[in-house]
């Protein structure tokens, strides 16, 4: 059995890992509701979500769900890892904006992929 060195699946372009807790429960519920194609794996103390192109966390919706304003920094408290490009979009008022994770384009003939 040889250890694999080629990334797979190639369409898994973006991902985020979240520490277990109330924020993560709300984020998972939001992802299941708004982005059902995101793959979500619960590993007990953390949850990992990945997708081909993009994951968007809507802070306004999370604020409503949790009953308090959730800013980018409140989400970063529970973000324990990511891959792809992370793009914080702060809102004009507390509890608004979004945290976007976006995959870079696949390089044709690129390395490993």
């Amino acid at each position, binding site marked *: 059995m040889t250890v*694999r060195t080629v990334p797979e699946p190639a369409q898994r372009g973006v991902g985020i*890992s979240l520490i277990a807790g109330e924020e993560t429960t709300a984020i998972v519920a939001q992802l299941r509701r708004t982005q059902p194609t995101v793959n979500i794996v619960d590993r007990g*103390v953390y949850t990992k979500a990945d997708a081909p192109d993009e994951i968007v966390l809507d802070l306004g919706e999370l604020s409503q769900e949790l009953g308090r304003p959730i800013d980018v920094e409140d989400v*970063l408290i529970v973000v324990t890892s990511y*891959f792809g490009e992370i793009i914080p979009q702060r809102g*004009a008022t507390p509890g608004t904006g979004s945290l976007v994770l976006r995959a870079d384009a696949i*390089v044709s003939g690129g390395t490993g*992929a």
Partner: protein
Amino acid sequence: MSAPTTRIHDLTKDYVWNSTTAPPAAVFPTRYRVPERGRDPFKLLMRDYARMEVEKDNRVHQALDRAVQLRSSEQIEPRWVEGLKLLLPATAEAEYQAMKGAGLLISSIDNPELQQGYSAQALDEARHLQLVGALRQHYSRTVADSQGLQFGSRALSRHPVGSVARAAFAPNSVNDPIDAAIALNVVLETAYTNPLTVAIPPVASANGDDAYAAAYLSIQSDEVRHMANGHGTLRAVAEIPENIPLVQGSLDRAFWHQHQGSDTLVGVASEYFVRNRPWAYRDAWEEWVVDDFIGSFSRRFGPFGLTEPARLGDVARGLESQHHAVAIGLAALWPLNFFRIDPLDEQDFAWFEDNYPGWSQVYQPLWEAYAALSDPAGAHLLLQELPAVPPFCQVCQLPCIVPRFEAPEFRIIEWSGKKFALCSDGCEANFAWNPISYASYGTFWGRYHGWDLADVILDLGFIRPDGKTLVAQPHLHEDRLWTIDHIRGLGVTIQDPLAP
């Protein structure tokens, strides 16, 4: 209405000034051209950073308080406690070198946006050191056998394999600043902190330790910004084509060295110091390093002409066997440890053979011999069965029994009139890149050549409070403990395999 946070962040970048006196000479001048612009995607202000970190710390310390109140440490698998004695100081070393590395980058990179990101990182690394210290104190007060935890980072400099951590993390702070950023923020933070601090917490939890999971996942939540710092720096540097060959060489060297240290440490800790194994390390490595790191790196930096690390195939080959070789090496050298190693049993043998086919043929007889010699009444060590002790690699400091115990690939070279052992092609290439930085490091066997093993242990100080019982033991029983008298009675003399 207050100004948007990003606008305030832009303004802070103007708070820079040029010194009217000549700047001090760079400690480590860079070979790279570094552009003045760069990007920190988080655009974090200190007020928001402080609020976030206070909340993180509160959550970790609440978890530790809860663990004390519920006496959770009584439920921790004893094997895992022994692994923590090695893992905690190794992590502390990583954090210490990272803190120094962030300082190096702040002072070396003339780019206000990246400097702000690295400033937060330097504070993060100090926080991580404090958290690892808090965890060490927590276990010291609550586990049944805390002997060994008290040595902390001192143990690493004394223990023969502890030097592996020092060697792996030193290039993160003692280096060309861009090479340090590649080693620290790109390879360690983006690829290798994930196995160490995201994949291991479920292992800790499966073995009854939720305190470790709470602290290390919180530590890793800071690494998210450090990964972005690495990407920002690498992207800025990669935009200048003449930098690309330098970046590629740096990436190749750092990836190899980090593999030697981190893959071995995580593999040994997560498979040999537990009873419950939620995953095999080779599978965790494929997910976190190959899929997430290599996959993402290729997409992002392939267009700049960068390719996957040169020795990725050799690294993957090592994943099949290297940590197994080092685990039995640690067991064979057990009197020199500051932790105990429990012999494997039939259940362990079955798991290893299922997950690493062929393991039983090489390693099961060695572990059976180790178990058979665990009673001091037997008056014999597995170490005495070896024709000679293996030399330690001058680069990665692993014993030269890798990547396979039964088929090591080390070579002895001469440089500047002295002999050095190198465990592999990868370490030989790193040595050739900068021999002076490696050649000055003394070897464990060289330090103790001609000493009685009992005197070596006394010099290391790994003795329990009664002044005679070893901290290390080849089992987890409360009786049949080895003392310094047992060891002296064996008459084992250390022979440096590189001695003239």
